[in-house]
């Protein structure tokens, strides 16, 4: 009881730049006001933070920056009461940050394996951190495949990053949209069709899957049909959260709490939780 960290008080960060990604989603580049905090703020891919919008409330958001050499930013869709207020803010405005919380993606365990990322829509936001991190250590992995689908070309997040990734040697990038659009030179069709097209390897491989429930379920089905083992399919879950530290219980699924036991789970674990994704 003697040693404890004060976790209810957020640290203040300034919005440095706002980049519009797609219609209702923007990326906010942040910087901590206190340089001491900025120095000690270490993240793992797959973790999340609790972000306070002063006067509006707090929301949980995943961290897209890589743990190494990446600018601190969050990408947020204006979906609810608090995130809509965030989208009305300007550079120079301040927000509060608590965290990072959660377990994060395994990084050391997947070394030497083929890594497959399957993302749908804004599901790429939590995966971006891991993708960039793996690309920074490209030679420590086998094949690296990114399969990314969205409804229209205007719904593709991180266009500028994807164009960069395409240039990196030994990275297979597939992007797809739901139906043909003028000027689109890549794939057309749902993202699960890419699993077949990319000839996704299943031995000595790990797949990271994130996207809307309908896409998630069909991708999982295709991966399992190809022979991918359920414990090698990894995803990150989203839940209503209030505290981030395992106390408020809003994110409870069965016996696990997404904030402290998750948000990263294997499909094998997700299957036993017995709740919708």
């Amino acid at each position, binding site marked *: 009881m003697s040693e404890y960290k004060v976790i209810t*008080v957020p640290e203040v960060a300034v919005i440095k730049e706002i980049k519009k990604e797609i219609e209702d989603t923007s990326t906010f580049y942040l910087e901590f006001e206190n340089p001491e905090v900025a120095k000690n703020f270490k993240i793992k891919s797959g973790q999340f933070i609790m972000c*306070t919008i002063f006067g509006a409330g707090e929301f949980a958001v995943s961290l897209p920056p890589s743990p190494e050499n990446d600018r601190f930013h969050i990408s947020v869709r204006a979906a609810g009461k608090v995130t809509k207020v965030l989208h009305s803010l300007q550079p120079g*405005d*301040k927000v509060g940050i608590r965290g990072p919380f959660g377990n994060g993606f395994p990084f050391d365990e997947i070394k030497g394996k083929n890594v497959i990322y399957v993302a749908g829509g804004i599901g790429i936001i939590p995966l971006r951190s891991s993708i960039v991190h793996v690309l920074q250590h490209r030679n420590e992995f086998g094949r690296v495949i990114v399969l990314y689908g969205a409804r229209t070309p205007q719904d593709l997040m991180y266009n500028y990053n994807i164009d960069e990734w395409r240039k990196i040697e030994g990275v297979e990038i597939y992007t797809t949209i739901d139906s043909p659009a003028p000027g689109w030179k890549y794939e057309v069709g749902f993202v699960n069709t890419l699993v077949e097209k990319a000839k996704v390897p299943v031995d000595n491989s790990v797949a990271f899957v994130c996207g809307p429930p309908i896409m998630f379920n069909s991708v999982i089905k295709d991966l399992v049909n190809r022979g991918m083992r359920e414990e090698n399919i990894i995803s990150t879950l989203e839940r209503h959260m*209030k505290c981030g530290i395992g*106390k408020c219980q809003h994110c*409870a*699924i069965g016996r696990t709490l997404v904030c402290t036991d998750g948000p990263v789970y294997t499909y094998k674990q997700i299957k036993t939780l017995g709740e919708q994704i």
Partner: protein
Amino acid sequence: MFLIKKNEVLKLAQELEKSYAVYGPVVEKESGQAFLTKVDSVNDIDLNAPIPALPPKSVVFPQIEKILGYKYDRNSKNVDIKMVVVPQAKAIFGLRSCDLAGIQCLDRFFLGQEFVDDVYLLHRKQMFIVTNTCTKPFAQCFCACTDSGPSAKEGYDLNLTDIGDSYLIEVGSDKGKELCEKMGLQKSEAAHAAEKVKVVDKSLDSFEKEAVENKAWISRVMNRITTGFIKPQVWEFIGDQCFECGACSFVCPSCSCFNIEDFNKPDTAVDRMREWDSCSFEGYTRMAGDHNPRKPIEDRRNKRFFCKLSYSQSKKYLRPGCVGCGRCAWVCPGDIGLPNVVTYVRREITEREINE
């Protein structure tokens, strides 16, 4: 162990009043209902009062409480964040053993996990607890089934037991011992301790006759609930009776779910408040964009019983989450308090059919 005369027992509370804000069971005259409140005068405390309507969690984990305050000026962009400190030391006098078990559940949950809840710790670290052995169970009690009564075993500073003309005082902490020595109380003898054992045994024996409202054979259903080996029809039957009022969570000594909201005040100041929440509410898991992973009431309703009765949750609390106070059965408008749910599950186990 010490002894104190029956008519002098409130002197202990008087002594505590010097350094603590004293909370105790007070009986409201008109309704005859007991409430655990901060007392104006320790003479209001009634050690024979029935179980208080609200659990003592409101003392350590208030129903609504400010956990953070900040000021944000949109023009100058100045932020001023202040954590709220709760300096007042509190003493609870005359706590029942089931309610103490509830506080222990909260302790293990808020302080014993990966993160320590600092707001809870502020309340809890300077507290004095005096428990009171139940010499006779009340009609709704089933603490004998949940191993939390009728006499507290640990976690108290002092434990009182009515042994006829005086109270036996058991000491549970150094703080408690100091207080008794300071007051120069008479030391008890072996015969008094033996008398206490008799009182507890007599209390246990009278459960059959006195505690007539509830029977909850909890150990029988814990296994079933843990393994999920219960037919969906049973949960549907239970869910059908739920009014989603959340009363069971609010009166439960060990329920600890909360919500956090920022309240804007007329000036630029904002209060971050945390308030009790209940897993039976529909909005409990609803995310931005209206996606709700839990929808039907039976899906939400059974979460509470998993939380109270499954092994994995019991590991967190080192005991079942239910402490046997009977309050949920008391307040539930749909008759699905925990003892009844246990009965339904048991019935299903034995009859294999909920509606014959």
